[in-house]
């Protein structure tokens, strides 16, 4: 197993596009942080709204999904850019 890691480390040292990999990882990771914060707020607010007004649960659920989709869309832009970097 040690030989495997040494192999990987050697490959890393000789690779010219290590920066691209790091950038791609950062793009995906930071986007996940942002989307997590955003979707967390949406979910929290939706839960609170349903707790206050259980009769409006269906409308709140539907719109919460749509709002979450907006946030997720932006995060996926970053993921696509990360994929483009990583496969360059």
């Amino acid at each position, binding site marked *: *197993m040690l030989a*495997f890691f040494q192999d*990987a480390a050697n490959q890393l040292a000789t690779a010219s596009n290590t920066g691209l990999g790091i950038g791609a990882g950062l793009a995906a990771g930071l986007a996940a942080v942002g989307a997590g914060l955003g979707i967390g707020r949406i979910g929290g607010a939706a839960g609170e709204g349903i707790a206050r007004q259980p009769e409006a649960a269906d409308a709140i659920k*539907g719109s919460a*999904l*749509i709002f979450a*989709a907006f946030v*997720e*869309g932006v995060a*996926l*832009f970053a*993921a*696509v850019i990360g*994929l483009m970097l990583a496969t360059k």
Partner: protein
Amino acid sequence: MLAKRLLITIWLSLLAAVVVPAQEGNGEHGASGAGTTHEAGEGGESHGDESGEHQSPGTLEMSNADIFKIQFTHSVPYPIALLEVDEDGHEHAGLFTIYNVQPWQWTCLGLMLIVFFPVVGSFRKQRVGKFTRIMRGFCLWVRDEMVYSVMGKEEGRAFLPLFFFMFFFIVFQNVIGLIPSTGHSYPFAIYTATGTPFVTAPLAAITLLLMLTLGMKKNGVVGFFKGLIPHGVPAYLLPIIVPIEFAGLIIKPVALTIRLFANMLSGHLVIAAAIGLVFLFTKMMAGSALSYLTALPCVGMAIFIYIIEAFVTLLQAYIFTFLSINFIHQSMHQEH
């Protein structure tokens, strides 16, 4: 009845037109997985003793890059029938090249014919089977919860066929991609057609065209562009607001495109990565007995992501259709 037969005939001939050249060309072009491995082996020049032409090398002989290449080629479209010949007689990729995306789109159209003709017929005959009843429920849900709830009954009626088609076409493509499969030719290598921007962009282009044409028809060409800018905006903000609103017109469908395709692609990539870990661990531990144990958490993770994907496929179809409905409705009624 005649229309049904005609449509099914057209669909079958389309499918035959694709599958037959694909099966013939399969031997020459090779399929993605085996082809890539073979080239990688040749490039390295280290595996001189390759006896079988299309024999993939074992996991232990492959480099990490090859392992992941094989994993990910199944998530990326590849041509199955080139169909274009240049002067020297070589086939090359061009405008009419058939990728592995199109057969699955046509399969979905055919499945929709099979599933929804009984639904249409059930309204005439007043007799409903079990499966047809379920699909009727889906149709009613799309009609009442998505189209009518946003557009209203009078206006939404004209849009029903479009949004039925949009929703079920995306659902069928997404769900078909979930069927686990292996193989290199048409019926066995199942592919998620919505996992490429080339499929989702035309769907979003339909939304953009309807936004523009119906918005202009309803409000007039000048009124449509005037209506993009909210009322009561101070004059000194206009230089900022106008470009933002005009860019928003284009960004909306682009976001639709990327949201659907990135969701489907990323789900499949994550499953591929989780399964690829099995091979990576096998290589790390040189195929020892312990490496069989590492497969358990890897496959467990893949199944976990798979279950999430099963939810995401339906959710993304809902979101795509619902946002399209909202965008078209907004461009027709621009009250700010």
